[in-house]
Each structure stands twice: as structure tokens, then as C-alpha cells.
């Protein structure tokens, strides 16, 4: 009894500590996290739709899902590069990382638009 309750309490404590730790992250990182979440959520909705109606224009489905996933991946890369706690990218100015992020996204979306059909 104490074990289960401790597990529950532990889970609760873990959740709270995570939440408070997260609150400490800088705002720009939170923006990026929000963007990633938005992208993944959109992908999920597309997968559900495909599961419902079948994958007839398969290329369209792929392009939709991959655009979401691709942009999420690029955002994660941006987050890594912008995060000040990351010792590896200490010398890289965040504007430069953003300057990389924008064209990569544009190229990804060009390819996606071509594949959309």
C-alpha cells in the first residue's frame, strides 16, 4: 500500500519537478518546442485521416506527413544550436542557426510541394 502510493507520489513529484524545470527554460526555446509540438500533432491528424480513408494518393499522404516531420526535425536542430547550455555550439550565433533553418525549410517545402502532386 505504501509502495503504490509512493509510486503515485513519486510520479506526481517527478511530474512537478519536470514542470518546474521546464518553466526555467528560455522563452525562445519554448517557442521552438511549441512549434515542434504543432508539427507533430498535424502529422498525427494526417495519419488518422489516412487510416480512415485509405492511402489512395499515397504520394500526397507521404508529402504531408513528411513535411510535418521534416520541419519538426529542422526545428529540433535549431533548438540544439540555439540552446545556450549546449557547449558544442557555444561559438555559433543563434542568428546564424536561424539563417540555416530558413533555407532548409524552404527547400524542404519546395520538394514537398513537388511531391504533393
Amino acid at each position, binding site marked *: 500500500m505504501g509502495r503504490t502510493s509512493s509510486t503515485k507520489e513519486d510520479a506526481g513529484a517527478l511530474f512537478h519537478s519536470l514542470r518546474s524545470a521546464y518553466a526555467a527554460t528560455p*522563452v525562445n526555446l*519554448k*517557442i521552438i518546442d*511549441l*512549434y515542434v*509540438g*504543432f*508539427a507533430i*500533432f*498535424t502529422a498525427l*491528424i*494526417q495519419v488518422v*485521416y489516412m487510416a*480512415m*480513408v*485509405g492511402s*489512395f494518393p499515397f504520394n500526397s499522404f507521404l508529402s504531408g506527413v513528411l513535411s510535418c516531420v521534416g520541419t519538426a526535425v529542422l526545428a529540433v536542430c535549431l533548438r540544439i544550436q540555439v540552446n545556450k547550455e549546449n557547449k558544442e555550439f557555444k561559438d555559433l*550565433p*543563434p*542568428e*546564424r542557426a*536561424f*539563417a540555416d533553418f*530558413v*533555407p532548409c525549410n*524552404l527547400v524542404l*517545402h*519546395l520538394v514537398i*510541394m*513537388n511531391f*504533393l502532386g
Partner: protein
Amino acid sequence: MARRLAGFLVLLLVVSICEAAFLFQPISDSHRSAALELFTPDHGSFKSLEETYEALRTFQILGIEKKPDLTATACRSISETVGSSSSTAKDLFYALKANSIAECKIDKKASKGIISRLNASVSGASSLLDFYYSVGGLVLIKDQSSEADVHLADAEGVFRSVKAFSQSDGRWRYSSNNPESSAFAAGIALETLAGIVSLASSEIDQSLISTLKNDIIKLFDSIEKYDDGALYFDDKLVDGHEYQGPLSTTSSVLRGLTAFAAVTAENLNLPGDKMLGLAKFFLGICVPGDAKDFFNQIDSLACLESNRVSIPLILSFPSTVLSLTRKDSLKVGVSTVLGSEVPSLTVKLVGAFSSGSKDASLVESQELNFDKASGLYILNGLPKSIDVGSYTFVFEVVLHEPEHEEVYFMGSQTKVPISVTGLIKVENSEIAVLDSDLGSIESQKKLDLAGKNAISLSANHLQKLRLSFQLTTPHGRSFKPHQAFLKLRHESKVEHIFVVGNSGKQFEIVLNFLGLVEKFFYLSGKYDMELTIGDAAMENSLLVAIGHIELDLPEAPEKAPRPPPQPVDPYSRYGPKAEITHIFRAPEKRPPQELSLAFLGLTILPLLGFLIGLLRLGVNLKNFPTKPVPATFAVLFHVGIGAVLLLYVFFWVKLDLFQTLKLLGFLGVFLVFVGHRILSHLAAASAKLKSA
């Protein structure tokens, strides 16, 4: 073009008529029409004087009228050649040769010039051909201009120089440098030597002329022979350039021989059968397709027609197939090679032998009657011993005047294949079905093989079918045709053919169905019967449908052979096939529109969530540059990104990839420039902030 085609067809027809190996037809109208076709000048004149001469000489021999425009153009080229000082001896030779036929006038000055040039050529000659052209030219000019004084200087010396080119085997060389000798050159040499003798016969030692006789006899030792008795000369093919071919070579030798015989009083002692053999060679060619070959043939035949050695006579047959029904008579013509008349003679039929049998002659020796109207010798009525079939008739020709035998030559005996045809009587034909063991007749019907039959019989496998008939020739003898077949054809088109055997006149075939059951593939049913009797000598060969027979054969066992597959009606296999209607791919099932629109709305939801989240986070635009220059760049940067996204929308809706890429190129460059400016400005600003 159409004329050429017509001429070609005429040649083809004549060649096909002329196929008979042992029969040699003298020259006829088919040659004349072929000559007119072959010797057509290009734009009114021939390529060279040699060709002009050949055409004129051929027309002259064949008796074709001289066309005035041809003569006129010939005269023009002759006078041109004769007048020109650069003409060689060869040109003058052919010009004078053509002139001997065209008979154009050559003025005295020109002929004097020719004579002096030819004399110079003779003294300067070193090869056989040089001598030939110069001496030949002098002979011709002597005949053509009566006033000119033609004198050959040192005739004996020239004679010896030409003779020096001779070889021991009777052939001649062309020059002292060239070791190759040929019979063609021998002919040219003989003509040249004959020319020298005719120009200055008194100056030449008779013994020299006699040695030539030996040369000629040695030359004739090398003559070659075909199976049908034709004789010809041919040189070994050593150097393709010099090789002339048997026709040209034989014709050259013959020209030389007859020219030489014409100038010498001595007897050449050449047996007449050699001339007859040569005549057979030239006539056996029928109508040559080449102008040069045609000229060689006709010129040689003209030499044979009137020469001092011996003139061969040819037997010709208007028809070698005689019909007993029409009561045809055997007709024979005797003429020279060019078809001229001959002195009176008798044609005897010495014997007739059945082809392939060595028995004694079927007829006695008898003379043929001469019919003045047609000029042919006719055997009135074939003897009774000659029935239908193919025979070899042997003829002999005897000249009436003994002195003609010196001049003319007729071979000893001439063998000719003759076919006799007639109506064969088909009698006593009947068909019967017999019982196998007892041999008794179950049903018997009479057949009329000349007319229509519709016999209907039936038999089972234990019975036999018998067909019999008799064949009799017009003279009542038995006759065995090449083909005597009985064909049985089943409804399913499977056929069986049987040969009808004979003993004497009686032909009979017995089909024992018991033994034939397997051959017939156990197919029962209606069989059509057809009888074929055929032979080349039978004028009434027949192929009649006799009727049909219903055969009842036992069932086929398991392992019985199947009948061979019958040929398929070609139209059903290669004809048009059934029409195919194309089945297009059914379009995919699409989801209902409302569902799609609902999900479209659902997809927008996360975007809204994102925007709301941003607001909750307290997103602000504080870092937006205030100074005008960076501000412009910032604005332009955002505008640029927006423009690219708009371009993507257009790409999806309307544009193709190339247009998009082009525009993207421009926008990209702009964006890079602008982005770089604003971001470097922002970076500088934050760096300043950090350091401060």
C-alpha cells in the same frame, strides 16, 4: 522504259522457246526484233566507232533496213575521225570498217592522209594489235577508194613479224613482252596475215602461207566440246583483264580462219564437222542479251554462211510434238545458219527408236517429200509402228550434186527427240465391293470415266474394294501412264492415295480394308473417291470424282495413331480476330467530401493551438529594429519568406517546376541578401549587448 521492258520480254520469250538442247534453229525474225532492241543508240549516236560498226554490220547481216539518221551520224563521226590528225590506227580501223557498210564518201586528200598514216603505223608497229589495226585499215581503204594506190612496204617482213608472235600450240601472243598467249589473239593474227596476203600476195613466199595451215590445225586441236556437239574455243582465265570469254574467242578464231581461207587457194584440210560444231555453238546461244555478244554471234554466223572451208547446214523442226489425233505430219527444214536456201538435197528418216530402249528401229529407212510451197520436207503419215510416247528419230541428209559436198557440210546423222501424243481409250471401267474371304461380289457398278459419276457404295472393314479399267493406245497397244492414282478423302479432309497397278492393258487395284484400318486412322464415315490418270503423251488425261463410299471401320483402340492435323483454313487463322473492348482501370473510391472537409478543419487546429501557445508565452516584437535601415531589411526579409511561400502555393496550383525554380532563384538571391543584412545586424546588436 516501256520499250526496254517489251524488248526484255521478247528476249525472255525467245529464250524460253529456244530451250531445246539438241535442236538448233537458224536465225529468224526473233533475232531481228532483238537486234533492234539491243542496238539502240544513245541520243542518236553510239559511244564509239567500234559500236557503230557492230550495229551497222549486225543490221546488214540480218537484213534490217538502214535508218538514215543512223547512217548520217555514223558518217559524221567517220569523217571526223578520218579528218583528225590525232586519230590512232585503231580509230581509223573502226572508222573504215563502219564506212564499208555506211558507204560515206571520203575525199582523196583524206584517203591519202589515211594511207600514209597507216603505212607509218605498220612500220612502227611492235605488238599484234598494232599490226592488226594498221593492216586491216589498209585493206579496207583499198576496197573503199578505188583510186588510191595502197602499197604495203616490205610485206614479207611484216608477215614474218606477225608470225613471230605465234606459239607452238597454235596460239598467238600479243607482243614480245607479254608471254601470255591466247586463241583470241590467234584469230586476230590470222585476220592480219590474211590482210597482208590480200594486199601483196605476189611478194610473199608460198611456203610461209603453208606453215600457217599447220598453225591452224594445231589451233583446232585445242577446241573444246559440249555434249550436244557444239565446239568452241576458250582461253585459260589467267588475267581477268585480257580474258575474252568463249563467245568472243571462238568468234575471233572463226573470223581469222574464214579471212585466211578466202585469200589462199590452198585447201585447209579442215573437216566439215568442225564447222558444224562451231555453227551449233553459235546457234545454241539463241538470242544473246548483250550487244557485243549479239554482234559476235551474228558476225560469226555470217562467216559460216559463206566461207571457203565448208558451209554447215542445219536441220530445223517447226514442231517436235506430233499428235496422232490431229494426224500431224513430221516436217523438217534444212537451211544454212542464217536461214538461206540450200541446193537440192534429200532428207531421209533412217530410224526411229523408243526413248530409253536399245531395240531395233521401229521404222524402215524412207525419204521425206519436199513441199515447194513451204520449203519443208514432210513425212506424210507416221508409220503404224509409231504409237504414243517419246522417240528419237534419226535423219540423214544427202546432197544431190556431188560437187556441193565440197562446199557444204551436213553431219552424218542427226538424232532428234520427237514426242507423239494421242487419245487413250479408257474402257471397261468398273468398281465393286467384294467379300473378303469368299471373293464374292457384293455390289458392282459400271463407271463412265469420261463423264460424270455419282457412285454410292458401302463397305465394312471385312470387305475389299476393287477398281479396274483398261487403257488402249490409238493403235491398240497397251499403255502405262505416268500417273494412275486412286484417292480416298474422308469428310474430315484426311486423304489417302493409292497407285493403280497394271498387267498389260488391264489396270486394277484392290483395297483390302482389313489391312488398311490402321492406315485410315480408324475413321469411319463417308469417303470421296477420285481417280487420276495422266501422262505427257496422253491428250485426254483425266481427274474424275467417282462417287463416295461409306466405310464402317471398328473403334480406334487407346494407342491408335491420330490422323494428322489438317491445314487450317487460312482465313480463320489469319483473318480478323474478335474485337477487344478495353477495360479502363476503375477509379479509386474516394472518401465522402464532408469527411475530407472535416479533417481539413482538424488540420488547421494545431496551427491555432500554436498561435495561442505563442500568445500565452508572451511573445513580443520588442527586438524588432527601430532604425529605418534595419527595419526595412527586416520587413523585406519577412516579405521575402512570405513571397516564397506564396510561390509554393502558385506552384501547386498552376506553375510547373521549371518556372518555379526560375522564380525561386530570383527570390532566393534576394532573400539571402536581405536575410544576411538583417541577421548580421541582429547578431551585431546582441553581441554589443553581451559585451556591454
